[in-house]
């Protein structure tokens, strides 16, 4: 079922690339329409999985990635519609297509073990989903900032100069996305700590190796805290040190690289506490 949204995301990527190259308003509208169709198809898929599992598919890594892609698509659509700016699409869509390939090739099974119950767990996961989606957008905006910055600095006003919004607009969008992401990441980590304390008190915790592994020594938890440190520095420290513009854009890219590292390889192969 995840193949249909994947095909539509891929079609939207082609349309956004075409729009970016030719700047035709008609193609831009088509690109947005295809992306809306992809998001709707994805909503249907997630809705079906929710009905099947009895809860939103976020407790296993693969369905979690699918839900993240869906949320990122919605967040991007919101950003596009609120700023009336389509130039970012060509940078966001490759990420959506790449990540959606994972659930499309390996749908995975949405299982919910006894420990993954309760509102704290749902709040923990959904907060982190929002945080990661915001960081993904910040990363893409940061990359486009650097591309435009380099063109203006090098005095070769070409491809990106003609297509991207101003440096100031990109910088503000980046700051905004980082701030939103940081709030959700902080909530997600605090609620995660509360949830870990809660499940440790359960009778089944003694025999569940995942609960036993819920500590700073677990790669997933450790890297999440590193992420938080990077984004906290970007939110509160960098600009006070005069690290505006390009440096914060690089930090956004670095932060999201760590998020992706935590999101795919660590989730699949290294974590013991989040091995669901």
């Amino acid at each position, binding site marked *: 079922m995840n193949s249909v949204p994947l095909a539509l995301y891929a079609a939207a990527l082609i349309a956004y690339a075409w729009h970016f190259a030719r700047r*035709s*308003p008609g193609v831009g509208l088509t690109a947005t329409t295809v992306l809306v169709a992809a998001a709707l198809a994805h909503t249907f898929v997630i809705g079906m999985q929710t009905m099947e599992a009895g809860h939103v598919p976020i407790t296993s890594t693969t369905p979690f990635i699918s839900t993240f892609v869906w949320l990122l698509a919605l967040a991007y659509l919101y950003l596009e519609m609120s700023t009336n700016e389509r130039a970012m699409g060509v940078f966001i869509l490759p990420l959506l297509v790449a990540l959606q390939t994972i659930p499309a090739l390996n749908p995975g099974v949405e299982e919910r073990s006894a420990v993954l119950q309760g509102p704290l767990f749902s709040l923990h996961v959904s907060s982190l989903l929002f945080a990661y989606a915001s960081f993904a957008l910040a990363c893409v905006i940061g990359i486009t900032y650097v591309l*435009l910055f380099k063109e*203006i*600095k090098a*005095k070769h*006003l070409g491809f990106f*100069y*003609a297509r991207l*919004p*101003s*440096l*100031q*607009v990109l910088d503000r969008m980046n700051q905004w996305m980082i701030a939103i992401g940081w709030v959700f990441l902080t909530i997600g980590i605090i609620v995660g700590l509360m949830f870990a304390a809660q499940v440790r008190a359960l009778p089944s915790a003694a025999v569940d190796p995942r609960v036993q592994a819920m500590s700073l020594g677990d790669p997933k938890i450790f890297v999440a805290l590193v992420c938080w440190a990077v984004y906290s520095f970007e939110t509160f420290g960098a*600009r*006070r040190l*005069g*690290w*505006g*513009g*390009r*440096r914060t854009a690089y930090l956004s890219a670095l932060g999201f690289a760590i998020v992706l590292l935590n999101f795919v390889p660590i989730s699949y192969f290294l974590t013991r506490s989040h091995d669901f």
Partner: protein
Amino acid sequence: MHILVVGLSHRTAPVELRERVDFQGRVESALRALAARGSTDEAVVLSTCNRAELYAACQDASRARADLAGFMSEFHGVDRKALAPHVYDLQDLDAARHLLRVAAGLDSLVVGEPQILGQVKEAHTLATGAQTVGPILNRLFHASFAAGKRVRTETGLSSGAVSVSFAAVSLARKIFGDLSGRSVLVIGAGEMGKLTAQHMKSQGVQRVTIVSRTMAHALHTAEAIGGAGAVPWEELDAVLCASDIVITATGAGSTILTKAHVEAVMRPRRNQPLFIIDIAVPRDVEAAAGEIEQVFLYNIDDLQATVQENLARRASEVLRAEAIVAEEVSRFSQWLRSRGAVPTVVALRQKFENIRRAELERLDFKLSSLPTEARPEARACVDEITRLLVEKLLLTPTEQLKALGDQDTLAAHAEALTRLFGLSPSPDGERETVRASADPEDPPTGREPSRRVEFFRPKSKPSSGSGR
């Protein structure tokens, strides 16, 4: 009906002459004077800084051509012989193509300049207000609007700044986005600095400050810009720190801002972007200052290179723009050709309608055998059936005739139809032609019906027999 353009432009006439034949501010009176002369059926006056053109639709092209050139000379009081070498005239599709190229910015002094489309629209609006636009020029001008819009959206003909001061403004917008709320510092009181600052001011910058070694010069420049402030040279560092855009144009012959100087300014600014436009020769700002993070330094050569790149990019888009113009001219030409078929179509329909009505009258006698109450219903039924029958019979011939490719083939077909069906145009044929040829999707001309009759005088016909 012919289309004609008579005029002069920057390509054919020097500015001294263009100034003398400028219609701006007197377009309505020119349109009224043209209509009164009677040599044209429709007229539009297009007058800009770079061109003065009269567009007309007329029956007799050679008469109208001579009259329009004479009108231009008489209206402006310019000797006709002095004007003649600079005036060009184009007819029919050449005239149509010319207007579409003008609206697309292809005939402009700076290729792709965007103001011309608005000026063409304004010319059409004025002529519509003066009721000198009929179906031909109305359609032609709307075709030019479509061509202009398509060229702007589908090509890069109008993209990029093509003057140094606009290039500077364009760069500032790309760095800061909206310029309102930004502060501009002009170092030096030269003409170029003043001009660039004026462009910045027109973009809504919050504050313009002039710094000059001579306070009197700074005050004078600030006054010339309007709404700008002037500060003494000693306060340069403080103002520099609070500015987002710096324009240096001192002509001092030595460096005014060194890298170390700019670095020192950037620290209290917390590395907020600083755009320095150095338009002085020799340069006022040390080139190494451009290496500082968040400092964007452009000198006069950099800006001129940007302008040249933009001009080259526009030139590379000309072929695509010409292709769009050719498409729109072809579409207009097809519409124009289809108009040629209208008199025959009208006569053919009239002939069929006459036959139908005659037969319905004969039917009345036959219907008298029916009961009185059944007669109206039976007649209405037969009327409806025969009307639909005639419509269906004539649909294909009408479409085929309108779609014919060239005037010779159309004339041959029209002649054949006239002979086969014994067609003869009505005395009102020409006016009918105009009404029938106006497609439902044609843009409104804004002309009063009474005026339409006056403008479209019936041609003298060899046969005056009415088909009715």
